[in-house]
């Protein structure tokens, strides 16, 4: 029997060719549709409820998609795309998904018109490269020219779509201050802004406006004992990574003694060893002791007597940050090379003040005026936990954006300005090419317009009208040398007009835009290359596991 005569029987579905492409693209489209309404300053939030009933309220594209249980394989690519954008840039997660979906939709139309996907792909690649080049060369504006205001504006643009939009002035300043406070120069002389050094603490109660920035670090734990002082200053901080409990042999070592009096000595020794350790710490001059492990009640008394604050069960991550901020060394053992136990005062970190304060119903240890001051804390207040979580996400996005702006040092106008400019530019570029890619580039150009369109639609404005006006401005900007300034024209969504967004303070880091283009194109290409999908039926034996 010839093999060819028998159809290959696969347990499951197999789709190929145009079918699978259309299906993939429809899936991506529907994912984009979910997040579409959350784009822009007048976008709205989504409420996600899981099967236990826990609620998440968010506007962040990546969070929405991560929470949704997306099943379709092609749609999953988009979800990962949003996560990638979140990791790399931190903001623009919604935009990247929308652009990718639009690129796919247009590509599908081309393929239906018998243009081979590979031609479309190469056209997209070319367009993407040109677009990035154009953004960097022509549209980007150096931050140095614009000063601190531009940073605040960047943060504000990022927050405008979020819950915080009403208080964006307030929060934007806070974010910029926070990022600038953690500025540091590494060994190679590069200036870095480690966002992780910014500790975001959430405490419900009061209103969002009463959130504040704290120079120093906040630990979400109270003092170990009531008798300890509420405040020490100046503080000398010891960071420990071991137990201050009765000494105990590791691994169940048994001690055999034949003289019963020895037994008593062992007990005595256990307690004394901890005491000696604590004395060593105190002798070195420490008056604040942080440990990731426990402290015995018995040991607490020594701290109380010495007037020191001891905090137990500090999170390891927190301890690392504190150590970094105060110049302390996190000590994991006292043992030195000679087999003795010592604690040198050089391990101590310094801060102006360590206080315990009450925020809402919780006690919080605040470490203020740290020596190296590369840590700040943002204390968020708000009506309830859901709101705080969303504020946290919004603030994180804004922090990332400010960081990117500072690092990449260039910004572009927001509100659809870049997309419109690129669209005009690429269309012009397409006409200069004589190959098959021409069509693909033209479609790419058209796809970018989805951003201003969605922005306008979300604001319930006339999208067609606004986008046409916008394109007209950008066309003049690119053709007439004396009208260059028009390249910053973007949408004003509150009033439904076209305005100069650079002057209006709606700006984004150029790097974010470039990444959006790159990631969206790459994702679109990945999905476009698929022409066969085999979905295998679930094996019965697997059911038990799921």
């Amino acid at each position, binding site marked *: 029997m010839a093999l060819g005569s028998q159809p290959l029987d696969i347990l499951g579905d197999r789709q190929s060719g145009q079918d699978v492409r259309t299906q993939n693209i429809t899936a991506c489209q529907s994912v984009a549709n979910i997040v579409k309404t959350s784009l822009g300053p007048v976008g709205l939030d989504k409420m996600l409820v899981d099967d236990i009933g826990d609620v998440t309220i968010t506007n962040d594209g990546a969070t929405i998609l991560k929470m*949704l249980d997306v099943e379709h394989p092609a749609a999953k690519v988009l979800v990962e795309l949003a996560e990638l954008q979140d990791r790399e840039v931190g903001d623009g997660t919604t935009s990247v998904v929308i652009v990718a979906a639009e690129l796919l939709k247009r590509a599908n139309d081309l393929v239906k018109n018998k243009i081979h996907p590979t031609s479309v792909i190469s056209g997209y690649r070319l367009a993407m490269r040109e677009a990035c080049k154009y953004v960097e060369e022509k549209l980007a504006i150096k931050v140095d020219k614009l000063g601190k205001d531009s940073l605040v504006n960047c943060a504000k643009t990022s927050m405008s779509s979020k819950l915080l939009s009403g208080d964006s002035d307030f929060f934007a300043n806070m974010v910029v201050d926070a990022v600038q406070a953690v500025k540091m120069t590494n060994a190679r002389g590069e200036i870095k802004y480690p966002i992780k050094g910014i500790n975001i603490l959430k405490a419900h109660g009061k209103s969002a406006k009463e959130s504040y920035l704290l120079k120093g670090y906040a630990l979400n734990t109270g003092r170990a004992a009531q008798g300890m002082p509420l405040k020490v200053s100046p503080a000398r901080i010891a960071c420990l990574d071991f137990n201050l409990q009765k000494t105990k042999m590791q691994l169940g070592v048994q001690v055999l003694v034949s003289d019963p009096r020895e037994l008593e000595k062992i007990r005595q020794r256990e307690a004394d060893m901890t005491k000696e350790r604590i004395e060593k710490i105190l002798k070195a001059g420490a008056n604040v002791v942080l440990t990731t492990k426990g402290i015995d009640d018995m040991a607490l008394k020594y701290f109380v007597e010495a007037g020191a604050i001891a905090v137990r069960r500090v999170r390891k991550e927190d301890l690392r940050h504190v150590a970094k901020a105060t110049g302390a060394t996190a000590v994991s053992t006292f043992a030195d090379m000679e087999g003795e136990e010592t604690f040198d005062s050089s391990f101590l970190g310094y801060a102006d003040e360590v206080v315990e304060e009450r925020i809402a119903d919780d006690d919080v240890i605040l470490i203020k005026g740290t020596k190296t001051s590369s840590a700040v804390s943002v204390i968020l207040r708000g009506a309830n936990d859901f709101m705080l979580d969303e504020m946290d996400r919004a603030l994180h996005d804004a922090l990332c954006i400010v960081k990117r702006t500072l690092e990449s040092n260039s910004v572009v106008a927001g509100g659809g300005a870049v997309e419109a400019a690129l669209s005009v530019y690429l269309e012009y570029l397409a006409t200069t090419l004589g190959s098959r890619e021409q069509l693909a580039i033209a479609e790419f150009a058209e796809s970018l317009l989805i951003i201003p369109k969605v922005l306008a639609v979300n604001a319930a404005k006339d999208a067609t009208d606004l986008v046409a006006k916008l394109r007209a401005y950008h066309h003049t900007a690119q053709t007439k040398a004396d009208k260059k300034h028009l390249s910053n024209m973007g949408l004003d969504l509150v009033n439904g007009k076209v305005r100069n967004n650079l002057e209006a303070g709606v700006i984004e880091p150029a790097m974010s835009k470039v990444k959006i283009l790159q990631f969206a194109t790459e994702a679109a290409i990945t999905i476009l290359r698929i022409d066969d999908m085999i979905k295998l039926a679930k094996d019965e034996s697997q059911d038990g596991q799921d």
Partner: protein
Amino acid sequence: MQSPVLVLKDSLTRESGSKVHHANIQASKAVADIIRTTLGPRSMLKMLLDAQGGIVVTNDGNAILRELDIAHPAAKSMIELSRTQDEEVGDGTTSVIVLAGEMLHVAEAFIDKKYHPTVICRAYNKALEDALAVLDQISMSIDVNDRSMMLGLVKSCIGTKFTSQFGDLIADLALDATTTVGVDLGQGIREVDIKKYIKVEKIPGGQLEDSKVLKGVMFNKDVVVPGKMKRKIVNPRIILLDCPLEYKKGENQTNAELVREEDWAVLLKMEEEYIENLCVQILKFKPDLVITEKGLSDLACHYFSKAGVSAIRRLRKTDNNRIAKACGAVIVNRPDELQESDIGTGAGLFEVKKIGDEFFSFIVDCKDPKACTVLLRGASKDLLNEVERNLQDAMSVARNILKHPKLVPGGGATELTWPYEAAAVAFEAIPRTLAQNCGVNVIRTMTALQGKATKDVMHATGENAWTGIDGNSGEIADMKELKIWDAYNVKAQTFKTAIEAACMLLRIDDIVSGIKKRQAPGSNQPSKPTIETEGDADNEQMIPE
């Protein structure tokens, strides 16, 4: 032409658009409606029966909502609000829900008129800012040392509660307790830690009037050997320990191998000696009372009773902390490190009393107690629970005033003073509900009240800013005369929480529910190759068909 593409799991339900807005608003309003009748002095209680058959009788907004099992996500978010309010200021839990519900209800009309939710939110935020400004304007400072003023204030807060007939009593209790534990931090800042230093002990039996604030601490324990130890000591010297007074093995695993018989006796003797040693060290300081958080062996009891020292064991850490605060003792961990300064001498009297069927120890008449116990008596446990909740509220109010001595008029007077249209309508919910609950003609009262308030705004005289509804009679009255006040930061917090929460709920346009708890992302992918190989294996079986 093609089958529908499934992107999401079919277990997911998704709602979006204006449907969501309406659903959210309805749900929030439903929550507000549940507790609406518990607002004001003529409010009614709710009786809740939980799954275990326990009964809660209360009119505390937070207590009611906490017990409810609510499915709608928006309603859940509302319930969180009252928790926030409770934790932050301790009072106004009902108002915040009623206000947030009303805010959303008013917004519904605007959404129907096709206003964009973000526009409404912006307006609300602005209204909030102005509301706080107005609040600042009409608030008046008070002297925290003026007791009658403070009493009036706390009383107007309890006015809404079950215990209103005992308003004076509860207000007295709350005020006494909070002033006792108040610590001056200097610069006019006062810290009052209710959670740590005020303990409310409920003992069923007796009358509510028998309740009192002790100048010291009380706890549900008796001396270890009732017959031999003294149950009443005047001016006791108190030692507080948090170590066991019995022989305890070391942390390390130790085995003793005994070869000779005498060794056994030595071992036992050592244990005895150890305890004796401890006791001798303690007795050196001539205490009258030894209290430990841990165990106390019979042998130690013997030594103590011989020396005429009373001992109490297995006390809770929190109680121990309070005793330390009350009598000025320091909790000691190792008896060999005892110092004279660790001994508490501040207490005037130690006494064990039998109330009902149980023994209670009192350490009272302390010189300068920084911690206290509030002893509540009452007919039944449910009643006491409710009284305790009211007392907690009252204490929170007293604390707020101590920390932030500013007042605003109560009885719905504050709510009527802003000029914003939508927000103002929502704010009216509070006086309206007050009027409703006391059964007067709502419309007539409201219009009269509004008339006065508008006149006030127009003439900017400020003299009518204190006009509100007397929740008992339903008449319009001057709140200043009636001494119906609210604490400034309770009001401010209520507005902030309610408006911000309303904005958050308004901004939602999509609800996706039924999401599976996220499994580890890795767990899906590795299983794929195995499915494939098994699929191939199946194929071979299929071919013969």
